[in-house]
């Protein structure tokens, strides 16, 4: 159970040690103290370990994560869990803009609110935000799910591809080519599975959500849609 004081020992050494972990390591539970908003903490992990960070982190915490379980006991700056491939990132506080940006897989759970561009260009990740999300979230989102227990800001799902967006609260406005879609059983099942994965099974009712997806009118250029470009 290594405990690492980032303030005294520095970022490079922490990441170097975390990157050196092999899949069968016995050092499976790490604690990082005094993160002090530093950037790229626990970025690029590739081992099934848990890293608990006791405080607020800066940009790109757990960026490009594979396999690891990263828990942030605080708030995260821009691009938390960006381009994650697999694993689980749990932020107990709020997250800044571009949370989960371009991520291919794994799950990001945010207990608080997310800023602008949450899930921008997401490519398969499941993001669940217990609070609300900011403007331009799920811009050009390609695949995966974005579940929001609170409200969504302006231009949700602009230029959306095939990601599915589930929002329980209000949506300030929908972006170009994003429409509300029927919530069928398969969607309620999918949503339930995501809620369960975030530890919310039985606590949150999937039927309270609305589903948003791509109208697919921008999939092939047409002059009548030129205003959307």
């Amino acid at each position, binding site marked *: 159970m290594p405990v690492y004081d980032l303030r005294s020992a520095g970022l490079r050494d922490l990441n170097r040690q975390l990157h050196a972990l092999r899949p069968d390591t016995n050092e499976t539970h790490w604690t990082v103290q005094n993160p002090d908003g530093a950037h790229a903490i626990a970025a690029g992990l590739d081992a099934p370990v848990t890293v608990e960070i006791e405080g607020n982190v800066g940009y790109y915490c757990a960026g490009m994560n594979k396999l690891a379980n990263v828990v942030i006991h605080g708030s995260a700056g821009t691009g938390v869990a960006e381009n994650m491939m697999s694993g689980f990132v749990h932020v107990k*506080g709020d997250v*800044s*803009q571009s949370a989960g940006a371009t991520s291919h897989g794994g799950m990001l759970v945010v207990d608080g609110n997310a800023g602008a561009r949450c899930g921008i260009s997401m490519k398969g990740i499941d993001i669940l935000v217990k609070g609300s999300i900011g403007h331009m979230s799920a811009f050009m989102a390609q695949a995966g799910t974005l579940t929001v227990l609170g409200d969504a800001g302006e231009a949700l799902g602009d230029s959306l591809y095939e990601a599915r967006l589930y929002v329980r609260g209000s949506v300030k406005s929908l972006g170009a080519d994003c429409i509300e879609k029927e919530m069928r059983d398969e969607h309620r099942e999918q949503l339930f599975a995501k809620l369960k994965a975030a530890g919310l099974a039985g606590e949150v009712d999937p039927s309270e959500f609305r589903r948003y997806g791509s109208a697919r009118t921008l999939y092939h250029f047409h002059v009548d849609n030129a205003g959307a470009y």
Partner: protein
Amino acid sequence: MCGIVGLFLKNPKLEPQLGTLLADMLKTMTDRGPDSAGFAVYGSDGTGVKLTLRGPDAKTLAGAVSGLEAALGGVVGATARDTHTVIALEADQETAARDWLSANAPGIDVVSAGKRMEIYKETGLPENVAKRFDLSKMTGTHGIGHTRMATESAVTTNGAHPFSTGLDECLVHNGSLSNHNDMRRRLQHEGITFATKNDTEVAAGYLSWRMREGASLKDALESSLTDLDGFFTFVVGTETGFAVVRDPIACKPAVMAETDDYVAFGSEYRALIGLPGIDKARVFEPEPARVYAWERQTGERH
């Protein structure tokens, strides 16, 4: 392209620590802006008007100040700090002082004017700039700091932030405007003068102009959202408060923290970690295209 910090105290007990807290915040933003740094501090209430003067060096500046004293026929209260000197005047002496300086002291710039505001800025690493002016010893109700990574205009002291927008008013900016050249020409036509090719100075001039025409600071910031194009996070200081606004796209970072004792602004959370009670603060990001303003005693108003 830069780092911004701001600290607005609600609890007067923290006022003796304002400079120390602001200096630490400024230093954490060095990576975002290693070229130059500057800060505005709102100190004790004065009766007249304070001018912050900047010269090429302390000696030239001291010479100009004694020349000014002679011309005004009396002693001006002068406090020298490195390349800057603050002079305290009676309110009705300001015009005469400015006229004398522009006629007789080439190379001496009036960086700021106000009852309470003093602005200091220089090229170099933020930590060194703060030390040169002894920021950590300064006291006051609120302050704004800026670290600059120059984009298109030169790395000069004139290009450093904050920019004065009027009596007791200043502006810092993170981002990059895209219509500032035309706006500068328009404002020049309205009689606003500019010392640099800096986009932020245009934003400052724009606010000055709008307020000169009768707009409130809040109205001026509201209209900046349509009249200024490009990317910006502005933090504005006034005699009694400060305000924050981000452009509608809001790419440039902004984090705020509020407690019963203060409101703080940082380009990154890192800038805020040294503040007392930060663990319990309400931390949030200002929304795009929304003007936030705080006033002494009255708390937040929108």
